[in-house]
């Protein structure tokens, strides 16, 4: 997006953020459900890290 200093698609970012908030509630969940949600959150975080590294290569961790 022109003028966006972070160069990340805002629609995609908002969709991930909305889903992340939904995934944070654990009431009544089994341990497997919690682990699967953590897995999904971790995948989302990795997706965001990849997007940041793609657009800002200097942000890659050593």
């Amino acid at each position, binding site marked *: 997006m022109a003028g966006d200093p972070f160069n990340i698609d805002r629609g995609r970012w908002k969709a991930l953020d909305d889903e992340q908030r939904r995934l944070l509630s654990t009431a009544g969940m089994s341990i497997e459900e919690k682990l699967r*949600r*953590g897995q999904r959150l971790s995948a989302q975080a*990795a997706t965001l890290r990849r997007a940041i590294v793609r657009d800002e290569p200097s942000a890659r961790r050593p």
Partner: protein
Amino acid sequence: MSRPLVDPDLRAVTAALIAAGAEFVVIGGFAVIANDFVRATEDVDFLIPDDTENDKLLDVALTDLDAHWLAPSRPFAPGDLADREHSRLWTRVGLVDFLREGAPPLDFATVSASAHVADLGAGRFRVAGLSSIVSFKRLAGRPRDRADLEELRAIHGELPIDPLPGLDDQADD
């Protein structure tokens, strides 16, 4: 070589360890998640016993997972775990960390006895319980660990505190 940004795949890595017959307990971020603070994590952490026979079973699993050491980057070779307290490797299913058991209450038997049991479809495995997670986090003491403890306290109330050798005995001096 910079590490690849591969999602940590708990099901795949535990499946490989179960298939090899290795003993392990999931600790770290996924154990925090299992104890109700669901957050993202970038790796899968395991507590392993101080047992050379179990190391051989881990060798099989890590070879199957195409494990590599991070720095300097080189392929994992059977026997590499020997005498290591901590091993951090990347695999085709993400980053994995192996921590060798310590003194009680962070020995394998104690952590295993109080662990949860989970099954993601590839067999049953243990995930550290709240008291063990609190002990690991108190001992590590990094900002991430302190933040986890704050979140767990907000969820569970007062946390179970087991005295830790090398930490709490110094506090008594």
